[in-house]
């Protein structure tokens, strides 16, 4: 299959390894990958913070970049949730029938990365090897908006060499919430400290998730506290093979 990547502004700028890993996994599975160069951002930050007007043009941009795609894969559950939950409404509020129709036609082909593997391709074992102790945090948008369920966990269980340890309060929000982490910094840190405590209690070397935004937040505290525990996007674990050491 020809898979089109939407790497998201965040991953592109701050976490390029995630995108590279997505490419690696998909190519290893025999798919061809393309990256439409005109893509920028899904508009989540603007929209969720109340700047809806500013987010509007990004709907058209997304459609223009991916109109012809067979499947669009996005390594960020919150960005996919943004599109699925809000793009149809946004297009409707622009009173643009054509755009509305394009969005409706395109969205069923848009997948979060782990969702593409489990639901799109029906895979559990992607031939990965990752000999580390890992715990998995379920990002809110993946869990509730996209209803990923145990998909990511099933992918992880099939990884060779992995020592997967369960995280207590798996479904609890880590406290990131985009601009929430800044506007309500204190509450956000209180939520975060519960999450990092749970992560440290597992004794894992790394915490993984389907969203780099949660991971950046968790990683920020794990580093500040000098815990030595890392965070790693799910795609990077699935990209691991016998020759890889991280």
């Amino acid at each position: 299959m020809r898979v089109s990547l939407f790497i998201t502004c965040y991953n592109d700028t701050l976490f390029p390894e995630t995108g590279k890993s997505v490419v690696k996994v998909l190519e290893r599975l025999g798919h061809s990958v393309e990256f439409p160069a005109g893509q920028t951002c899904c508009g989540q930050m603007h929209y969720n913070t109340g700047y809806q007007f500013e987010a509007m043009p990004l709907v058209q941009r997304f459609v223009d970049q991916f109109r012809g795609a067979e499947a669009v894969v996005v390594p960020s559950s919150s960005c996919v949730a943004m599109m699925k939950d809000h793009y149809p409404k946004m297009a409707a509020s622009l009173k643009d029938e054509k755009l509305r129709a394009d969005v409706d036609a395109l969205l069923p082909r848009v997948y979060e990365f782990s969702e593409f593997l489990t639901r799109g391709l029906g895979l559990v074992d992607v031939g990965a090897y990752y000999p580390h102790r890992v715990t998995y945090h379920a990002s809110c948008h993946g869990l509730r908006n996209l209803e990923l369920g145990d998909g990511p966990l099933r992918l992880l269980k099939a990884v060779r060499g992995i020592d997967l340890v369960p995280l207590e309060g798996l479904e609890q929000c880590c406290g990131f919430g985009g601009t929430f982490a800044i506007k309500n910094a204190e509450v956000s840190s209180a939520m975060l400290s519960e999450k990092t405590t749970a992560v440290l209690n597992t004794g894992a070397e790394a915490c993984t998730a389907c969203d780099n935004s949660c991971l950046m937040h968790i990683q920020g505290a794990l580093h500040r506290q000098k815990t030595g525990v890392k965070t790693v996007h799910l795609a990077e674990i699935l990209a691991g093979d016998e020759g890889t050491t991280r």
Partner: protein
Amino acid sequence: MSGVALDPKTAPVFPMAARTALADTQMRKNVRHATDVIQAKRARVVAEMPDWQQLREAGKQIRQHTMEHLDFYLEQFEENCTRAGGVVHWARDAEEARKIVTALVKASGSDEVIKIKSMTTEEIHLNDALEAAGIHAYETDLAELIIQLGEDQPSHIVVPALHKNRQQIREIFQRKMNLPELGETPQDLADAARMFLREKFLRIKTGVSGANFLIAETGGVCIVESEGNGRMCLTLPETLITIAGIDKVVPRFQDLEVLLQLLPRSATGERMNPYNSIWTGVKPGDGPQTFHVVLMDNARTDILADKEGRQTLNCIRCGACQNACPVYRQTGGQAYGSVYAGPIGAILTPQLQQMHHAQSLPFASSLCGACYEVCPVKINIPEVLIHLRAKVVNQNTAGITGLFDFEAAAMTAMAMIFKSERRFRAAQRLGRMAETPLVRKDGQGVGWISWLPGMLGGWTQVRDLQEMPKETFRDWWERRGKNGN
């Protein structure tokens, strides 16, 4: 905060109030424990219901339908209630509602009332208004009694004293009921409250209640509760005054079949409330002989007129969203500066206040969606939060002051960047340059930022930020393409 009525007009903004709340370790422990217990019970009784999702959908449909025809059902209620011997009053706002209730109590010839727990009366600060008119109101719900005696404020819509533990309650009772020898078992505390209240039930002839539901088809009023104190207030007084928001109406008696399954399971994790009372008008020789219903708008028609905010009125006040909310669980209810706390408070309060005051509340959420997941009538709270955020932003960026709004300026600049790939790439490069003076290498040679200026400083209070990688994904992709993989 104790003693001072929770009022969005005077409350500090949420982040400030949250700071105070976060410092109160005992309160946080109490809230955490109580919400854990209720959530576990809720999860158990919800799991028993194979058709829970269909029930939720049915609940949503009933509420949505009612709101779409609210004028019709309210008039139907008025007609049927009047026919049954009740007197219906209409109050445009809190002020009018307070006046009506005060006048009705005075007309009953009493300067004391017994009250059933009602968030609507809290919403309009009824007790203070009564007190000012020389009327003393006694709360009879155990939790409300604790709040009243402790000169405190409610922190949860179902369990208003959830932020207090047993020792704290015992201390309040010892002091206010003059019981120095009081024991500390739940039984001891319940006995003390019973003795204290019994005298009031038997003496005071005027009762004030809220309503869980108003039934249009019959003109009946429904109240559900756990302790039976409410039932005493509904049956013993000679005059009963019920005050309810206009959103409390349901079309048919039969609709209670759905709602009375959803409410107790969501609220307290019970299959059914121990006491369910429905009364319709007056019956000679049985219960109160004078019965009034005050139907209060207080901004509810404005909410109704807002297509996207409207679903807020579907709320049946079960409090499940509060228990599930990670923000509420950290801060407790009083940080919200309103009797409606947690997710429902974050959307309801600003709308009740016509978006004046309480502007920080729509932002008091990480949008994690836990509230939406548990809401028995499927109110999409995150969606309403985002809708209200847009309203706040529109207000703040309007006019000349909007030009000096730092956040708005940054957001506009970012939006410009995202409109063009070229500008986006330039911004990525610029970001790498701009951060350079802030980056410090750690032992492994990885760069980290542990201090950010201005508004962004919130991030680096407890978190580090890894430096930007040398190469973006898109640069890598291009390089790879050029090298033919």
